[in-house]
């Protein structure tokens, strides 16, 4: 009887708390960004960067997944974060992403984490064909910028936190 009371009290206290947590944090979603053979970034909600330097702008939530897809083709691409807008002479900022195989302590500024690392080397910061899987960490606050490791300011974008 005492055990049953305990179980009831745990459920009474715990379940509302769980519901409370899930109600403040919407379900994680996956955003797909594709590097195209037209030298653009294109998101699955129909946004696209322009080769004149106009960026792709996407919004994410903490906990979301971002799939950077680069289909195989003649025109190579890769993904790296940068420390400023793509049109403001930025430098690569790899410290924003914890890549596969890296020690979490080595990147205190990380806001994204590469996932799906089982047995495969990291493709972050390199040209590749396939998918780079990223997770938005709780540390993500300010907008971050990224560009293609090949096309740089001609193919850049911005990831913002959803309000």
């Amino acid at each position, binding site marked *: 009887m005492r055990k049953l009371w305990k179980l009831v009290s745990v459920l009474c206290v715990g379940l509302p708390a769980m519901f409370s947590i899930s109600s403040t944090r919407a379900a994680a979603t996956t955003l797909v960004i594709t590097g195209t053979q037209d030298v653009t970034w294109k998101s699955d909600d129909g946004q696209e960067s322009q080769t*004149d330097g106009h960026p792709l702008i996407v919004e994410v939530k903490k906990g979301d997944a971002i799939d950077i897809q680069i289909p195989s083709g*003649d025109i190579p691409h890769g993904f790296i974060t940068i420390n400023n807008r793509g049109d403001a*002479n930025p*430098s690569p900022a790899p410290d924003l992403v914890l890549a596969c195989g890296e020690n979490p302590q080595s990147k205190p500024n990380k806001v994204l984490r590469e996932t799906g690392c089982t047995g495969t080397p990291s493709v972050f910061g390199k040209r590749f064909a396939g998918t780079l899987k990223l997770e938005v960490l709780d540390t993500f606050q300010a907008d971050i910028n990224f560009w293609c490791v090949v*096309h*740089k300011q*001609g*193919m850049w974008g911005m990831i913002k936190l959803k309000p």
Partner: protein
Amino acid sequence: MSSIVFRFGLQIFRISQRLVPGCCTRTGSWSCGVRGYAVILSFAVLTQVARADDELIQLLVCSAETSGQPAVNKICTVKPLGNGHNKVKLNLTAETAPVEVGGYKVKNTENYNGNYLTPVIEVMPGDTVAAHLENRLKPRPHGGMAHGDADENPTNLHYFHGGIVSPNNPRPNVELGTGDNIYVHLKSGGDFDFEVPIPGDKSLDARVLEENGYISHPSGLNWYHSHLHGISSDQVIGGMSGLLSVGDAKANVKAACRRNTPTDKICLNDVYKDTADLKKETVVRYALLRDIPLKITTLPEDASGADAVWAPQDQDFPTPEHKDCAVWKKEGSELKPNLDESLRKGYCQLEKESVWLFTLNGQRFPTITLDGNHNLLLRIGNVSANLAYVLELCDEAAFALNKCSEADGSVIPLTIISLDGVVPAKPVSPDDASKPVAAFDVNNLLLMPASRAEIYIRNDNKLHQNSQTYVLRTKGLKGGIDNWPAVALARIVLKPNSFASEVIVARNAPVEEFPSRPFTSLLEEAIPPEGCVRDLESAQTEYRRVTFLDPASEGGPWRIKTEIVHPNASAKETDQPPVSEATVGPFPFENYERKDGLVDWTKKHVCIFIDHSSHSGSHKQLWVLRNTTPALHNFHIHQMKFRLATIRELEDHQIIPPASHDTSSGTDIQVYDEQNSSETDPDFKPVWHDTIPVPPNNQRVFLIMSFDAEQQIGRFVFHCHILKHEDKGLMAPIEVWGPKPVLQ
């Protein structure tokens, strides 16, 4: 010091005139005097270190007029061919030797004849230009070549860039061809003789410039240079290049017909007399626009014969991170970088211990002085391996304040009388040639690597009582990952004049004629050579798409993909599907190179068949150049000229015209011609090119190419003429073939 040399040179010249009477009879005594003087002056000046602000050194000229003069005796020979024309032959020894550049004595560059300054060749249409090339370069390590003997420093010669001349390199031993054949692979210690006939009267099919008759080879400024894939950038930076003029130096100086209205058939002026006057008032200066990276211990302003070390591996331009180029100046007791553009007089620096020199005729920031009522014909070649220049002429006072502006009149227009070796005009009848139209002005001129221009700067059309000084500068160019700096190149001083001429400078269009000659078709022997993919089917409005591509993997070579596209109205241009069996690549040029450095012609490559003997039809093709890389590229094809396609020509190929200009590089790059039609518009004024910029990040440029002349038959290349890009793969072979028994 230079004035002493000047007088010394003049004296020797006067003596030589007495010793060699009649040596200058071809174009009159004035030009003879200038040219002979140029020869002697440069001969004398080459014995001293030139300083900034010195008068521009004049180059040795190898021509029928100058041959036999002491200064050119060992390098230039002229023999009559017996038909009123000459064979003008230049001896070029490629060697590793010290040179003098921009005030420095530079150890061991790779150059011709032990000199940074190379002779100008002047030949007439109908002449044959020849070269004896010896390779005496010292071995040195080279990176990035596919074949094995790079470290032995092989070389070859593009003889000449801009020529619509035969490569004369039939299969199977393409590398033995003695024409304008860049497949020659001359190892260290070897010799090779080139011999290139230049089409004379009525011997060049005018369809290459889109008319129906025959013309002489266009008059204009061209050049010659080393072209060995993998190491051409280094060799050209070292000095292995020179200028070549088809036609005499003033061939394109012509007065325009002045009319009451544009449609008037009668000229208000005597064009013949005005032309003669204009030529008399014209001072010609050849200018080799070059740049060279050096390691230094003495700053450029103090370099009066200081030693420097050639550093071709330091090719930091364009700078990938948009790093700015500075001038190191003393601030207190410390040397610090200063970004003030007006300080960059013929140089700039990315670090204190190195310098990038930008020179005219090996001089840093020289002066060109024009007497009153004399005009300057600046025959300038951007013979840089890798750098683009945006030329502008700015008032010196405004320049000193960094306030060059078209709006306030401190930038004065440049009158262009030829570009890339051709007057920008369609060939005209002899009658129309006697009533030429005016040349055109530009506020600035983008001169990509390998481009040449004849720029006419007047000092006879506005009265002024005081000297006027202008700075010829490149205003710089940024775009994509590229960053070419703004640098001042020379001063131009216009002395006071006493009258204002009304003469207008003209476009000296090529003259078209119609000889009667039998035409026969020999199509029965038209069997495509091995390795050829099929050509365009013009009846199907097909076009060729040439795509420049980044390396497939980090550090790999750049690649070119060539496709034939069968237009489909429902798709945008980049989605138009190619004809699969005609696709070549994407390949770097290394794909074609064997271990011995020769080319394997059995591999799939672009081919064009022309039956020039029937003189029917035309092989006018639309080429769409697509640059998917983040770098600006510079398309060049040998043995021909091309122009931008018109809107109508794009629409004919079911291409929706994009924006006609790209300004992402900070300068205006036109990607097609906004004139409506080349076919129906009598006022259509094409601008011919042999190099053209292709903006980065998936931009496209639309060109019309005409393969119609027998001189185009043979094996040659198209490539990026930023040579370090070409060296890293951006080059492709092309084969133009015709029915036998014509030379293949």
